[in-house]
């Protein structure tokens, strides 16, 4: 299934923006309709190409945030202050506008719904997007894999997918979501506030057992730190898959 989908060279496609969902003050989800789209695996990404009138063009990679759904593809884009591409995607692009992209890309940072191993998803900032695709796919596919999403964000104001995060957290015990607030928590929050540390990660990872598969995504510093903590818990390098967005913390 997935194997057939990766045959052939990848061509640029033209999608159309169908809908926008504002997630936070600086991030929004672009819902795209992409004719000719080949169904993706959660965790995969697309490359977006913007071309100026003078012919100058630039590319960026964005993780897919949605579960496979025909020709629909959702990307969550965080606006970077000095970004070259994200300001256009978050402030200018409007429903009905075309957008050039190629994908789905990447067979390494991808979760296969038929894999029944327990999964730990750890995301920092907008690094939660491909992990959300995995959680959404787990629900849509009827998978019974134990999956735990741990999402580190600065404050309630930067929390992506806020409503969905709550419903995930309240689900059955086999799919859970935990938010780590690093700077400020919502009113009435009884948990700790601060970076994900060894003690907290151990508490979250241990119930998943020694055979847990880990996906870590976010800014480089977050990914390095978290991967090191997981190795410190005794997990092997082959159990930990990482995707780093670079030092800026933006999506690529």
């Amino acid at each position, binding site marked *: 299934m997935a*194997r057939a989908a*990766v*045959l*052939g*060279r*990848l061509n640029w496609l033209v999608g159309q923006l169908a809908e926008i969902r504002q997630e936070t003050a600086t991030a929004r989800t672009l819902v795209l309709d992409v004719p000719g789209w080949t169904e993706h695996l959660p965790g995969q*990404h*697309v*490359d977006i190409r913007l071309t100026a009138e003078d012919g100058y063009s630039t*590319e960026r*990679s964005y993780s897919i945030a949605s579960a496979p759904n025909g020709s629909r593809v959702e990307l969550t884009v965080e606006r970077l202050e000095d970004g070259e591409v994200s300001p256009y995607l978050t402030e200018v692009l409007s429903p009905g506008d075309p957008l050039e992209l*190629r*994908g789905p*890309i*990447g*067979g*390494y*940072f991808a979760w296969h719904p038929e894999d029944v191993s327990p999964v730990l998803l750890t995301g920092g900032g907008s690094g939660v997007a491909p992990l959300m695709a995995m959680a959404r796919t787990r629900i849509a596919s009827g998978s019974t894999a134990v999956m735990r999403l741990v999402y580190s964000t600065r404050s309630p104001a930067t929390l992506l997918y806020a409503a969905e995060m709550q419903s995930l957290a309240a689900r059955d015990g086999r799919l859970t979501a935990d938010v780590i607030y690093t700077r400020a928590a919502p009113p009435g929050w009884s948990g700790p506030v601060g970076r994900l540390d060894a003690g907290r990660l151990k508490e979250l990872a241990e119930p998943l057992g020694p055979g847990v598969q880990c996906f870590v995504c976010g800014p*480089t510093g977050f990914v390095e730190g978290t991967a090191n903590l997981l190795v410190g818990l005794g997990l092997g*390098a082959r159990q930990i*898959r*990482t*995707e*780093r*967005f*670079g*030092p800026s913390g933006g999506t*690529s």
Partner: protein
Amino acid sequence: MSDNWTDGNSLGGPLREVFSVDITAATGRCSSCGTTGPLAEGRLFGPAPGLVLRCPHCGEPLLRMATGPGHAWLDLRGLAFIEVTTPG
């Protein structure tokens, strides 16, 4: 060396313009230090003047890629081998 790098994961798109399978999930061996692992775990620098994938262990180049209108150039000297899964 600059710390402005991303994962080998992001080389997936450019390489899929050349290859029909995803090479970032393939296993490669560094010609310099012998470290073996998925190319997705390398460190990618670029895009100008070209993309350079470096070994996460020793920092030596594994793969270099430059593209121009209608052409791509690949320098794979830094890889002793790559192992790709095939159908069947």
